[in-house]
């Protein structure tokens, strides 16, 4: 059997789109072939995990799905009658247990045993299932539908790297076929996204990621070999990585959205010209949006409400500053347990707190700081470079540069 990693090369699209033709024709005529959709999803998931070291991952995916199935089923059934906070927190803890164990293995703790639990996409599936439990607590999900749950969990286009959807939203789309005129608009959108994705992923991301970034890395490493603590080459390393990361991830997200649309599911968008943001908070509303909105709703807001409701801290500014740090630290740790992910989270939290303080300062001293096109442009440039600096930390190259020469 061949092995097909999602969206890895142009052939993949030929196979996948051909397989989706019957589904699309059905949707056009107002019918959703649920069984066929499940079979295609499973077949392409199978082709990700059908050989070599991927087989283990496939087994882990199955075990993981059963685990999450039981948790969601159990909690939703429980929630119909009761609403104890401790049960909720316990279920969430069990739901994120697999990814915590996998992250521990990544940090070298019981590596051989725990890494068996990991598979491509585990971090994204965690958002799906944990989010569902939180939605159940809030009453947005009332009933457990086994088939719909599995369709949501194993929705193939967004399996490996998002965008992160919510069960309540997904179930609404997946229960019916869209209106014909609306579906045609979705197909138009899908075509546009697909071709833009080709430009991003196969041309620009390739250029920055395979040609430019490695070149600057090697130049920086040769300074490292000469014992230098810092190198001017780290600057182009940061620029090229920033470009690579955006085009790679945005390109990937466009593919995932395009395929979702063809399947009649309007998964949420992930990027909206993030490098044009005027401040760091705006950046997070435009970069990896489905992730940051998930964190905003399920970590940040809940934390703030909890603090204010229980009156543990009275000052709203202090609460939001602490919440930024909690939020971004969790996000950093979600990527992995390394110093640079933690530092990355801390940098972004500081940036947000600083941004709030700056806005408060401007409000207090109206007219002191001018506001015009020039200052806006300066804000964009400043934000972009701050983000690049955090990405330089995030990419892990500094770890190689300093500690693995």
């Amino acid at each position, binding site marked *: 059997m*061949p092995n*097909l990693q999602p969206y890895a090369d142009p052939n993949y699209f030929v196979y996948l789109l051909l397989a989706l033709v019957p589904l699309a024709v059905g949707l056009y005529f107002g019918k959703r072939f649920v069984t066929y959709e499940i079979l295609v999803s499973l077949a392409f998931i199978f082709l990700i995990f059908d050989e070599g070291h991927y087989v283990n991952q496939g087994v882990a995916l199955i075990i993981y799905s059963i685990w999450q199935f039981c948790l969601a089923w159990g909690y939703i059934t429980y929630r119909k009658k009761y609403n104890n906070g401790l049960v909720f927190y316990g279920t969430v803890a069990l739901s994120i247990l697999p990814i915590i164990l996998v992250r521990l293995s990544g940090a070298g703790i019981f590596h051989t045993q725990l890494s068996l639990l990991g598979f491509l996409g585990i971090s994204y599936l965690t958002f799906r299932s944990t989010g569902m439990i939180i939605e159940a607590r809030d009453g947005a999900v009332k009933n457990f539908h086994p088939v719909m749950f599995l369709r949501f969990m194993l929705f193939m286009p967004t399996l490996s790297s998002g965008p992160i959807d919510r069960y309540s939203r997904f179930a609404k789309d997946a229960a019916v076929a869209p209106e014909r005129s609306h579906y*045609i608009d979705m*197909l*138009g959108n899908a*075509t546009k996204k697909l*071709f833009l994705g080709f430009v991003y992923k196969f041309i620009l991301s390739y250029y920055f990621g395979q040609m430019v970034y490695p070149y600057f890395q090697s130049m920086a490493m*040769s300074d490292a070999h000469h014992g230098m603590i810092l190198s001017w080459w780290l600057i182009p390393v940061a620029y090229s990585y920033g470009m690579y990361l955006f085009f790679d991830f945005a390109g990937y997200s466009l593919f995932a959205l395009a395929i979702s649309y063809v399947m009649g599911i309007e998964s949420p968008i992930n990027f909206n010209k993030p490098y044009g943001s005027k401040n760091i908070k705006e950046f997070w509303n435009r970069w990896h949006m489905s992730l940051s909105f998930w964190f905003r709703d399920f970590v940040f807001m809940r934390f703030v409400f909890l603090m204010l409701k229980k009156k543990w801290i009275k000052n709203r500014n202090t609460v939001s500053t602490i919440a930024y740090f909690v939020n971004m630290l969790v996000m950093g740790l979600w990527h992995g347990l390394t110093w640079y992910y933690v530092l990355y989270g801390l940098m972004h939290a500081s940036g947000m707190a600083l941004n709030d303080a700056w806005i408060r300062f401007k409000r207090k001293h109206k007219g002191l700081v001018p506001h015009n096109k020039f200052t806006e442009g300066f804000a964009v440039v400043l934000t972009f470079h701050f983000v690049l600096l955090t990405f330089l930390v995030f990419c892990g190259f500094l770890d190689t540069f300093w500690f693995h020469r």
Partner: protein
Amino acid sequence: MSNKKKLWRIFGPVLVAFGLLALVFLLPFSLTNYSQKSLQESSVSFSNQLVKGEAVKNAAFADKKVNYVPFFGSSELSRIDSLHPSVLAEKYHRNYQPFMLGKAGSDSLVHFLNMQEMQGTLKTKKAVYVVSPQWFTKTGSDAGFDLFYSPLQVVDWLLNLDQNKPRATDQFVASQVLQRSVVKNNAYYNRLLTKVEKGEQLSETNLSTLRLKHRILSRQDALFSRFEKTSNYQNRVLPAAKSLPTTYSKNVLDRIGYDEGKKGTSNNPFHIKNSFYTTRVMAEKKALKGAQKDYDYTQSVEYAYFQSVLDNFAKNHTDVMFVITPVNQRWAKYTGLNNTMYQQSVQKIKYQLQSQGFNNIADLSQDGGEDYFMQDTIHVGWRGWLALDQYLNPFLSSAKTETNYQINNRFLSKDWQNLKPSQQSVESFQ
């Protein structure tokens, strides 16, 4: 707007785009027009693109002004100094000019596929094949396979099969490349090569899809292979040639090689080129002491890869010279590389060659201890290149001779791959 119209607005441009793409790929106008200068540069670019594609190779070997001769090899080819084969051919107006194919990582399996794109050349031209015993590690040294692989090679290969039927060598190579993920994960090539591996004849349908693939891939190759710009010929070969005396004298050139080698290797006791020593050796010098004492080149799947190349030469009756490279003895002593083992692997390679009628062999394997014969740890330079020229010049300057090769497929077998020359005489292998 009606729904039908909307659909046209969406998919019409896509159809037009594919139509235009089809025109670029299928219309019979040539895209391959290479200047003399760019062919010259390609001959010493050592680019993996050359190995992957066929456009530049075909243009070079069909060139009427310069008689480019293919030099198959790996990292040693790129050690340009005053006595490098490309420099000598340029300076002394030889009736041949080396065209270098390969760089670090291109072993025999890579070259078997590389050659599939230039079978016509191999029928008419002489060739040089540089064998590095370093390739012959236990599991083969084809970590570089992906770098040099292109689907066009496989398409050419399958179109080259005699009566569309795989021979033992084809079956063997198919079984090997099917283990590489770049090949295996492509459903189309996976299916065809599995057929070849089993020795099944290709069908007419197979052939017609292969011909279409060939059209598309060779067009793609012609479009993109011109993007690489190097200037080794301009910046390194021509200046080196300029500095040499006008008339060829082996003794004078040997003296020049000695002096340049001495000057160029002054910062270390191993006679390793200064720049190579500072960038590649110095930092790890301590770790490298004795590091190679368990290296073994006598048992390797590479012997079978090598056999597939020999079979291909025999199939095309190529008049070919084999070069067996030495290692820097001073360095080998330091790293503990076992010279007896090294010579045994050379004996095994030579037996495989001579017993099948490949008798043009430039065996330099014993000369790695000579002063300034090597440019660094395992690559010949200066006086080594000049010594090699004593074999190459007479061979390449003379007319092509009839070949008489007798291929023995047993050299593809595990028995031969695993034969240990220290326990069993290689000459007893049948």
